[in-house]
Protein backbone atom coordinates (compact mmCIF):
# COMPACT_ATOMS: atom_id res chain seq x y z
CA UNK A 1 0.00 0.00 0.00
CA UNK A 2 1.17 3.51 -0.72
CA UNK A 3 1.95 6.08 1.96
CA UNK A 4 3.18 9.65 2.26
CA UNK A 5 5.10 11.35 5.05
CA UNK A 6 5.36 15.07 5.62
CA UNK A 7 7.79 15.22 8.54
CA UNK A 8 7.26 18.88 9.42
CA UNK A 9 4.03 20.13 10.97
CA UNK A 10 5.05 23.70 10.29
CA UNK A 11 7.72 25.51 8.29
CA UNK A 12 8.61 29.12 9.07
CA UNK A 13 10.43 31.28 6.56
CA UNK A 14 11.00 35.00 6.07
CA UNK A 15 9.59 36.70 3.01
CA UNK A 16 12.10 36.70 0.16
CA UNK A 17 13.93 33.64 1.42
CA UNK A 18 13.78 30.26 -0.32
CA UNK A 19 11.37 27.69 1.08
CA UNK A 20 11.29 23.90 1.11
CA UNK A 21 8.42 21.69 2.23
CA UNK A 22 9.43 18.06 2.56
CA UNK A 23 7.64 14.95 1.38
CA UNK A 24 8.68 11.31 1.23
CA UNK A 25 6.63 8.47 -0.18
CA UNK A 26 6.32 4.71 -0.41
CA UNK A 27 4.67 2.79 -3.27
CA UNK A 28 4.93 -0.69 -4.73
CA UNK A 29 5.29 0.46 -8.32
CA UNK A 30 6.20 3.78 -9.85
CA UNK A 31 4.86 6.86 -8.09
CA UNK A 32 2.65 9.60 -9.39
CA UNK A 33 3.19 12.53 -7.05
CA UNK A 34 1.14 15.66 -6.43
CA UNK A 35 1.27 18.85 -4.39
CA UNK A 36 -1.82 20.74 -3.31
CA UNK A 37 -2.27 23.96 -1.32
CA UNK A 38 -5.17 24.81 0.97
CA UNK A 39 -6.08 28.26 2.23
CA UNK A 40 -8.30 28.59 5.34
CA UNK A 41 -11.79 27.20 4.86
CA UNK A 42 -11.15 26.50 1.19
CA UNK A 43 -10.79 23.42 -0.95
CA UNK A 44 -7.45 22.06 -2.09
CA UNK A 45 -5.84 23.73 -5.09
CA UNK A 46 -3.60 21.72 -7.38
CA UNK A 47 -0.03 23.06 -7.63
CA UNK A 48 1.95 20.52 -9.62
CA UNK A 49 2.49 16.85 -10.33
CA UNK A 50 5.21 14.42 -11.32
CA UNK A 51 4.29 11.58 -13.63
CA UNK A 52 7.42 10.86 -15.60
CA UNK A 53 10.30 12.66 -17.30
CA UNK A 54 12.22 15.57 -15.84
CA UNK A 55 12.86 15.25 -12.13
CA UNK A 56 12.28 18.97 -11.64
CA UNK A 57 8.64 19.87 -12.07
CA UNK A 58 7.42 23.44 -12.32
CA UNK A 59 3.95 24.41 -11.19
CA UNK A 60 1.68 27.28 -10.30
CA UNK A 61 2.64 30.46 -8.41
CA UNK A 62 6.39 29.92 -8.90
CA UNK A 63 6.50 26.61 -7.05
CA UNK A 64 8.56 23.67 -8.19
CA UNK A 65 9.27 20.20 -6.86
CA UNK A 66 12.14 17.80 -7.27
CA UNK A 67 11.56 14.08 -7.63
CA UNK A 68 14.34 11.96 -6.16
CA UNK A 69 13.80 8.27 -6.73
CA UNK A 70 16.72 7.05 -4.65
CA UNK A 71 15.58 9.05 -1.63
CA UNK A 72 11.86 8.49 -2.41
CA UNK A 73 11.28 12.19 -1.95
CA UNK A 74 9.29 14.91 -3.68
CA UNK A 75 10.13 18.17 -1.89
CA UNK A 76 8.27 21.36 -2.76
CA UNK A 77 10.40 24.46 -3.30
CA UNK A 78 10.17 28.12 -4.13
CA UNK A 79 13.16 30.44 -4.63
CA UNK A 80 11.58 33.45 -2.94
CA UNK A 81 8.69 33.13 -0.49
CA UNK A 82 5.77 35.54 -0.33
CA UNK A 83 3.57 36.27 2.68
CA UNK A 84 0.64 35.16 0.53
CA UNK A 85 2.21 31.68 0.26
CA UNK A 86 1.24 31.08 3.89
CA UNK A 87 -1.13 28.12 3.77
CA UNK A 88 -1.43 24.37 4.36
CA UNK A 89 0.42 22.18 1.86
CA UNK A 90 -0.39 18.57 1.07
CA UNK A 91 1.71 16.01 -0.73
CA UNK A 92 -0.10 13.04 -2.31
CA UNK A 93 0.93 9.86 -4.08
CA UNK A 94 -0.71 7.35 -6.37
CA UNK A 95 0.75 4.03 -7.40
CA UNK A 96 1.11 3.89 -11.20
CA UNK A 97 0.20 0.19 -11.03
CA UNK A 98 -3.24 1.15 -9.73
CA UNK A 99 -5.35 1.21 -12.87
CA UNK A 100 -8.61 1.15 -10.96
CA UNK A 101 -10.18 4.19 -9.45
CA UNK A 102 -6.73 5.68 -8.86
CA UNK A 103 -6.70 6.30 -5.15
CA UNK A 104 -4.66 9.24 -3.95
CA UNK A 105 -3.03 8.97 -0.54
CA UNK A 106 -2.39 12.28 1.17
CA UNK A 107 0.15 13.31 3.75
CA UNK A 108 -0.94 15.01 6.96
CA UNK A 109 -0.06 18.44 5.65
CA UNK A 110 2.57 21.05 6.44
CA UNK A 111 1.64 24.54 7.50
CA UNK A 112 3.83 27.17 5.85
CA UNK A 113 4.14 30.49 7.62
CA UNK A 114 5.90 33.28 5.75
CA UNK A 115 6.73 36.29 7.91
CA UNK A 116 7.06 39.82 6.50
Amino acid at each position, binding site marked *: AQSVAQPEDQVNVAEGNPLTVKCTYSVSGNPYL*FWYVQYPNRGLQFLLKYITGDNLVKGSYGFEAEFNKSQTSFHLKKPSALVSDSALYFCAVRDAWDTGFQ*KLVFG*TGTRLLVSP
Partner: protein
Amino acid sequence: SQTIHQWPATLVQPVGSPLSLECTVEGTSNPNLYWYRQAAGRGLQLLFYSVGIGQISSEVPQNLSASRPQDRQFILSSKKLLLSDSGFYLCAWRLEQRGSTDTQYFGPGTRLTVL
Protein backbone atom coordinates in the same frame (compact mmCIF):
# COMPACT_ATOMS: atom_id res chain seq x y z
CA SER B 1 -13.62 24.74 -18.43
CA GLN B 2 -14.66 22.48 -15.62
CA THR B 3 -16.01 23.70 -12.31
CA ILE B 4 -17.08 21.89 -9.18
CA HIS B 5 -19.65 23.16 -6.72
CA GLN B 6 -20.52 22.11 -3.21
CA TRP B 7 -23.63 23.03 -1.31
CA PRO B 8 -24.08 24.24 1.37
CA ALA B 9 -20.85 26.02 2.31
CA THR B 10 -21.52 25.71 6.03
CA LEU B 11 -23.99 23.71 8.05
CA VAL B 12 -24.80 23.41 11.75
CA GLN B 13 -26.93 20.41 12.65
CA PRO B 14 -28.06 18.80 15.91
CA VAL B 15 -27.04 15.27 16.81
CA GLY B 16 -29.48 12.74 15.41
CA SER B 17 -30.64 14.90 12.51
CA PRO B 18 -30.30 13.84 8.85
CA LEU B 19 -27.69 15.17 6.46
CA SER B 20 -27.50 15.82 2.74
CA LEU B 21 -24.47 17.44 1.10
CA GLU B 22 -24.41 17.98 -2.62
CA CYS B 23 -21.57 18.12 -5.11
CA THR B 24 -21.99 18.93 -8.79
CA VAL B 25 -19.46 19.12 -11.60
CA GLU B 26 -19.85 21.17 -14.77
CA GLY B 27 -18.00 21.03 -18.05
CA THR B 28 -17.11 17.35 -18.17
CA SER B 29 -18.73 13.97 -18.64
CA ASN B 30 -18.38 10.69 -16.76
CA PRO B 31 -16.01 11.99 -14.13
CA ASN B 32 -14.75 9.89 -11.24
CA LEU B 33 -16.09 11.51 -8.09
CA TYR B 34 -14.76 11.41 -4.54
CA TRP B 35 -15.89 12.44 -1.04
CA TYR B 36 -13.21 13.25 1.56
CA ARG B 37 -13.46 14.39 5.15
CA GLN B 38 -10.86 16.63 6.71
CA ALA B 39 -10.84 16.69 10.50
CA ALA B 40 -9.09 19.34 12.57
CA GLY B 41 -7.82 21.16 9.46
CA ARG B 42 -5.32 18.48 8.59
CA GLY B 43 -5.34 15.05 7.03
CA LEU B 44 -7.81 13.98 4.37
CA GLN B 45 -9.74 10.75 4.72
CA LEU B 46 -11.29 9.25 1.59
CA LEU B 47 -14.90 8.31 2.37
CA PHE B 48 -16.49 7.30 -0.94
CA TYR B 49 -15.69 7.21 -4.62
CA SER B 50 -17.80 6.67 -7.70
CA VAL B 51 -16.89 5.71 -11.25
CA GLY B 52 -20.41 6.12 -12.64
CA ILE B 53 -24.11 6.59 -11.97
CA GLY B 54 -25.25 4.35 -9.14
CA GLN B 55 -21.73 2.98 -8.61
CA ILE B 56 -20.46 3.80 -5.14
CA SER B 57 -17.55 2.33 -3.22
CA SER B 58 -16.94 2.97 0.44
CA GLU B 59 -13.50 3.26 1.90
CA VAL B 60 -14.42 3.44 5.56
CA PRO B 61 -17.54 1.93 7.16
CA GLN B 62 -19.34 4.62 9.12
CA ASN B 63 -22.46 6.60 9.70
CA LEU B 64 -22.48 8.10 6.21
CA SER B 65 -23.63 7.00 2.78
CA ALA B 66 -23.22 8.34 -0.75
CA SER B 67 -25.28 8.30 -3.90
CA ARG B 68 -24.77 9.33 -7.51
CA PRO B 69 -28.17 9.87 -9.07
CA GLN B 70 -26.81 11.70 -12.11
CA ASP B 71 -23.53 11.66 -14.00
CA ARG B 72 -22.23 14.87 -12.50
CA GLN B 73 -23.95 14.83 -9.11
CA PHE B 74 -22.62 13.21 -5.96
CA ILE B 75 -24.50 13.31 -2.66
CA LEU B 76 -23.29 12.55 0.83
CA SER B 77 -25.97 11.59 3.34
CA SER B 78 -26.64 10.45 6.85
CA LYS B 79 -29.86 9.37 8.55
CA LYS B 80 -28.66 10.37 12.03
CA LEU B 81 -25.66 12.59 12.61
CA LEU B 82 -23.10 11.94 15.32
CA LEU B 83 -20.83 14.47 17.00
CA SER B 84 -17.90 12.73 15.34
CA ASP B 85 -19.32 13.58 11.90
CA SER B 86 -18.22 17.19 12.33
CA GLY B 87 -15.55 18.24 9.87
CA PHE B 88 -14.78 19.78 6.52
CA TYR B 89 -16.18 17.74 3.65
CA LEU B 90 -14.51 17.94 0.29
CA CYS B 91 -15.72 16.66 -3.04
CA ALA B 92 -13.29 16.02 -5.87
CA TRP B 93 -13.48 14.94 -9.49
CA ARG B 94 -11.12 13.36 -11.94
CA LEU B 95 -11.54 12.75 -15.63
CA GLU B 96 -11.83 9.06 -16.37
CA GLN B 97 -9.61 8.03 -19.24
CA ARG B 98 -7.76 4.80 -19.97
CA GLY B 99 -4.29 5.15 -18.48
CA SER B 100 -5.12 8.63 -17.31
CA THR B 101 -2.75 10.44 -15.06
CA ASP B 102 -5.15 13.29 -14.61
CA THR B 103 -5.33 15.22 -11.42
CA GLN B 104 -8.10 15.21 -8.85
CA TYR B 105 -9.67 18.65 -8.57
CA PHE B 106 -11.40 19.72 -5.40
CA GLY B 107 -14.51 21.70 -4.63
CA PRO B 108 -14.69 24.55 -2.11
CA GLY B 109 -15.85 22.27 0.71
CA THR B 110 -18.67 22.18 3.26
CA ARG B 111 -17.99 22.92 6.92
CA LEU B 112 -20.26 20.70 9.02
CA THR B 113 -20.67 21.26 12.75
CA VAL B 114 -22.74 18.76 14.70
CA LEU B 115 -23.91 20.03 18.11
